[in-house]
C-alpha cells in the first residue's frame, strides 16, 4: 500500500494533463486517426512526429476542438483535460480553446497593431480590469515570446509588417497572453529560417516551465532538441510513444526506426 502511494506520488510530479482514449477521427469517409491512446504530461514538451498525412496535425486539432470548425470532421472516443472530457456536451469549445491555446504553421497575425494582436485574447476574455493591466499583460507576453526588445518601440505598428520569424513569435505571444494551460503548436517553425527557428525553439523550452506544450514537427532534430516525450504517428495510428531519448536511440517498433533513420516517410 505504501509503495503504491509512493508510486502515485511519483507520478504526481508528472501529472497527466491530457489523456486521449480510443480517439478516432473521420473526415467524411476517410478514417484519419485510428484508436489513438496517449497521455500528455504537464510541464512537458511532447513532440508529434510522422510522415505527411499521418494524422498528427489532425490529432493536435482535436485537443482544442478546432476540428469542430470543419463540417465533415467527426471525432469519437474521449479526450480528457485534467480528467474532464472535452467532448462532453457541457463543455463550451470556446472556453476550452481559451485554456488550450494554439500556434499555427503559418504565422497569422491579425491585420491590427502589434499591441492589439497580443491584447486580442485578454480583451475578449476580460482578463484585465484597466489599461495599465492590459499593458502589463502585453509586455509580459511579448517578453516571454522573446520579441519585446524588437517591438517595444513600435507597438502600434501593424503586426503584418514584421518579418516571418517575428510574426511567429508575435503569434506565440498572442497565444500565451490568454494564459492557457496547454499550448499546441502545429509545425511552428516550418515557415521560418534557421535563426528564427532557434529562437522559437529556445522559447518553447522556456514555456515548459508554465505550460504543457505539444508540438507537431517534421524535423526530427527539432523533436529531439525540444521535447521530452515523442509520439510517432504513421497512417493514422499512434505507433510509439515514449521518452524522446528512447524513441530516437532505441525505438521498440521497427516502423519508428525506419522513419527515424529515413527509410520511410
Amino acid at each position, binding site marked *: 500500500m505504501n509503495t503504491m502511494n509512493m508510486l502515485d506520488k511519483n507520478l504526481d510530479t508528472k501529472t497527466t494533463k491530457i489523456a486521449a482514449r480510443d480517439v478516432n477521427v473521420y473526415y467524411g469517409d476517410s478514417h484519419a486517426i485510428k484508436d489513438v491512446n496517449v497521455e500528455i504530461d504537464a510541464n512537458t514538451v511532447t513532440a508529434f512526429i510522422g510522415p505527411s498525412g499521418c494524422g498528427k496535425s489532425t490529432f493536435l486539432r482535436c485537443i*482544442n476542438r*478546432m476540428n469542430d*470548425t470543419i*463540417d465533415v470532421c467527426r471525432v469519437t472516443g474521449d479526450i480528457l483535460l485534467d480528467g474532464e472530457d472535452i467532448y462532453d456536451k457541457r463543455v463550451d469549445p*470556446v*472556453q*476550452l*480553446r*481559451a*485554456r488550450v*491555446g*494554439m500556434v*499555427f504553421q*503559418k504565422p*497569422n*497575425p*491579425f*491585420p*491590427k497593431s502589434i499591441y492589439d494582436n497580443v491584447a*486580442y*485574447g485578454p480583451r*475578449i*476574455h476580460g482578463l484585465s480590469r484597466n489599461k495599465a493591466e492590459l499593458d502589463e499583460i502585453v509586455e509580459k507576453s511579448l517578453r516571454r515570446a522573446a520579441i519585446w526588445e524588437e517591438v517595444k518601440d513600435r507597438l502600434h505598428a*501593424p503586426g*503584418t509588417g514584421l518579418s516571418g520569424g517575428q510574426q511567429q513569435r508575435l*503569434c506565440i505571444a*498572442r*497565444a500565451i497572453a*490568454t494564459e492557457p494551460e496547454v499550448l499546441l503548436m502545429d509545425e511552428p517553425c516550418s515557415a521560418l529560417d534557421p535563426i528564427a527557428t532557434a529562437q522559437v525553439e529556445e522559447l518553447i523550452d522556456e514555456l515548459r516551465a508554465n505550460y504543457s506544450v505539444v508540438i507537431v514537427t517534421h524535423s526530427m532534430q527539432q523533436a529531439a532538441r525540444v521535447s521530452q516525450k515523442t509520439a510517432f504517428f504513421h497512417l493514422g495510428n499512434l505507433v510509439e510513444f515514449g521518452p524522446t531519448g528512447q524513441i530516437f536511440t532505441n525505438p521498440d517498433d521497427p516502423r519508428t526506426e525506419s522513419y527515424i533513420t529515413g527509410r520511410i516517410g
Partner: protein
Amino acid sequence: MKPPWAATPKSPQHIAIGWGGSSAPVVFLDQIQPVFFAAVTPELLMPLFWLVVVLLALTALGFWFGRRRALASAQGNPRHLHSLPVYYGANVAMSIAIPALLTLMVWLLAQPLLIENRVSGLIPQELIPESTSVGLVMSDVRRLAEGLDEAVLQNVMTQQEARSLDASTSDVRALLGSVGVALGSEVRPEVLEAAQQYRQLSRTGGNAMTLVCLLLAVVGFGLSIRRTHKDFRARNVVERGVLALLILAASLAILTTIGIVLSMLFETVNFFGLHAWTDFFFGSTWAPNFRGDSELSILPLLWGTLYISAIALLVAVPVGLFAAIYLSEYASPAVRSFAKPLLEILAGIPTIVYGLFALLTVGPLLLKLFGQGDNGILGLSWMTGATSVLTAGVVMGIMLIPFVSSLSDDIINAVPQSLRDGSLGLGATPSETIRQVVLPAALPGIVGAILLAASRAIGETMIVVMGAGAIAKFSANPFESMTTITTRVVSQLTGDTDFASPETLVAFALGLSLFVLTLGLNVLALYIVRKYREQYD
C-alpha cells in the same frame, strides 16, 4: 427595302469581282476616277458580303496551303519544323486576312466622309434654304441616289439611263415613287446631278476597294507562302499577332471612354458659351423654359441625387452586408448554394421593373403609413403624394442589396481561413471573430463595394423617374418629391427640342458632372481597396 441580293441572283464568281448591278465587265479602269472614294450605298451590300466571303475563303485556303508547304519543307516530318504545322497555316491566314480586312474597315469608314465632302461642293449656296444646313440637302441627295439604285435593281431603268437622267425632261419623283422610294419634294437639277455624281463616286470607290482588298490578300498570300519554310519561326509571329489583337481590344475600350468624355466635353463647352457657368455651379434654382431666361443650376439636382443615394445606401449597406456575413460565415453550403443565386436574381431585374415597384407598391404603401386623411394609418400627414425621396431611395436600396452583398461576400470569403483559425484558437466565438478579425480585414474591400454601389445609385434613372417625381428643390424632408441629375438629362434631351439652346445643351454639362462624380467615387474606391489590400496577404 428588300435586300438587294434577293432581287438579283447572280453567280458568286461574277459578283465577287464585279460591283453593283452592272452587267458590263467588272472593273473599268478608265472609270476609276482620280478620286475613287465613294459612299456606301445599299447596293454595295451584296458585293461587300461576297468580298468578305472571298477573303475568308482565301484565308482558309491560305491556312491549308501554308500548313502543307511547311510540312513539305520538312519532308513531312513535323519534328523538323520550328513550330507546329498549324502555326505556319495560321501565319499565312493572318497575312491574308488582317491587312485586307483592316483596309476594308478603314475604307468603309472613310469613304462616306470623303464622298460627302466632294459632292456637297456641287450644291450651290442659294439652293440651301434659310435656317437649314447643307446636311439636309445632302440627305436629299443620298435618298435620291438610293432611289436610283433601287430603280436600276428593279429594272425600271438601265444603268445608262440612270446615269443620263435629266430632271428637266422627266419626272424623277414619280419614277422613283413607282419603285417605292418616296421623295419629299420635286427634284431639282442640281440635286439630281449631285446624286448621280454620288452614285458614280460610290461605284468607283467600291470597285477600287474590292480591287485593293483582293490585291492585299493576294500579296499577303504570296509573301507569307514564300516565307514558309521549316526554319521560319511561325509560332512567334502568330503569337505576336495575337498580342496585337489583345492590345487592339484594350485600346478600343479605352478610346471609347475617351471618346465619350470628349463628346460630352465639347457640348459642355458650347453650353458654357451660351449660359453663365456661375449660374450652373452656384445658382439655386432649376427652372428651364424656352423663353430664354432659364435658371439652370446643378445644385438642386445634385442635392436630390445625393439625398436619394444616401437613403438608398442606408437601406442597401446594412441589409447587404448582414446578408453577406450570414451567407459567407454562417450559412451551410446547402443554404448558400441556393440563397446566393436567389439574391443575385435581384441584380438581374431591370431597373424599370423596380420603378414600377416603386410607383405601384412602395409609394402607395408609404403614403398609407405617413399620408394624411383617410390614407394615413398613423395620422401623421407628412406625405402628400406617392412619389417621394423616400420611395425612390428605398426601392433603389433594394436594387443595390445584391450588389453590396455579392461583392462583400466575395471579399469576406477572400479573408484567409488562417486568420479565423487564429482567432478561434484563442477562444473567440465565431461572432467575435467576424466582428474583430474578419470584418476589419475585409473592410477596405467592403468600403470599395459600398462606393461602387454609391456610384450606381448616383447614376440610376428609371427608379427616380417613377418613384421620386420631377420637382427640383432643396429640402430636407424625405417625404417630398425631388429629382436627380440623371432624370433631368433625360427630360432635357427628349421631346421637341432645339439642339442649340442652353436648355438642351445643359444635359451634357449635367452628364459630364455626373461622370466626374462617379469617376471620382470609383477612383476613391480603387484607391482604398489597393491601399489596404496587402494587409493580410
